[in-house]
């Protein structure tokens, strides 16, 4: 039975390490989204100012800012998850069925943020909060249904927080102020959630968990 216990303990170590990697990646991803996305939107909001300074058309600046933010976020997320999954040696049958949720989550986030383009100009930046909220809640539900990483409650709280924060913002009549407040809320919520996820990741390394 000594050997059996040895194997069971090793399995527990691997399980905790996988959970740690998963949470650490999500922590980083949330922080990067919380910084890069609002920065892109901020430049886009001040495109006329930036265009005047560097002598380019404001529309090009706005487009470039959004494209760069999107590419940076998407690239970082893809790279992070790829780096993590690359370290997995042999793919078991269980893992191959489990990995279907990744593209699904990607599609949900892409669709949600793409649909913000349909929102009226006055609500464009607040709709980012709604898109992020729907994306986080959907991701939470998908991960829960898959069952492998069920304890991503941070995403649930982030989704709810974004939604709750967005409603008082609708009372702000100044569109510029509304835009800035929406971006700050977006950034703060994501960075706090990312930091919380990183803390939870570190806890997974402790044998007592």
């Amino acid at each position, binding site marked *: 039975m*000594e050997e059996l216990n040895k194997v069971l303990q090793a399995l527990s170590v691997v399980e905790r390490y996988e959970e740690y990697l998963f949470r650490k990646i999500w922590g980083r991803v949330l922080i990067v989204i919380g910084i890069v996305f609002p920065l892109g939107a901020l430049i886009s909001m001040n495109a006329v100012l930036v265009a005047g300074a560097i002598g380019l058309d404001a529309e090009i600046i706005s487009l470039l800012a959004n494209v760069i933010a999107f590419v940076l976020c998407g690239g970082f997320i893809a790279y992070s998850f790829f780096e993590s999954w690359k370290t997995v040696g042999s793919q078991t049958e269980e893992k191959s069925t489990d990995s279907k949720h990744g593209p699904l989550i990607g599609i949900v986030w892409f669709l949600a943020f793409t649909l913000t383009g349909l929102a009226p100009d006055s609500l464009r930046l607040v709709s980012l909060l709604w898109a992020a909220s729907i994306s986080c809640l959907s991701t939470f539900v998908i991960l829960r249904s898959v069952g492998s990483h069920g304890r991503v409650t941070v995403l649930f709280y982030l989704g709810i927080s974004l939604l709750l924060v967005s409603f008082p913002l609708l009372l702000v009549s100044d569109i510029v102020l509304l835009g800035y407040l929406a971006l700050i809320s977006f950034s703060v919520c994501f960075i706090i959630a990312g930091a919380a996820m990183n803390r939870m990741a570190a806890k997974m390394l*402790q044998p007592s968990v």
Partner: protein
Amino acid sequence: MVLTVSDSLTLNAEERVFQSQPRFSIMYLLFLKRKIGFLELKQLLGLTPGNLDHHLRKLEEIGLVRNRRMISWRPLVVVEITSSGTEIFREYICRLKGLLEKIPEKLLTEQNE
């Protein structure tokens, strides 16, 4: 019923290092993940740096793992499994799996009850 594991496995010198619980966990983790940071490994196994270093040295001496210093924003030591380490551990795991499969189901259920 007493399981005489070491007799059944007839371990060679290289495989005998896996009999220690921490070394088995290190090798199993590296077998699946290929590499891991020293600090993460220390926390995962709940070992002191000296203790972990001792186990890693044992594995390193017979060429199963190697340490690599990475250039990063902080000093980082990464432990990697070698190709011979992968092969030796795979063989060991296969034999161990065969041995564990031989444990009668009845014995396991009796113990749970």
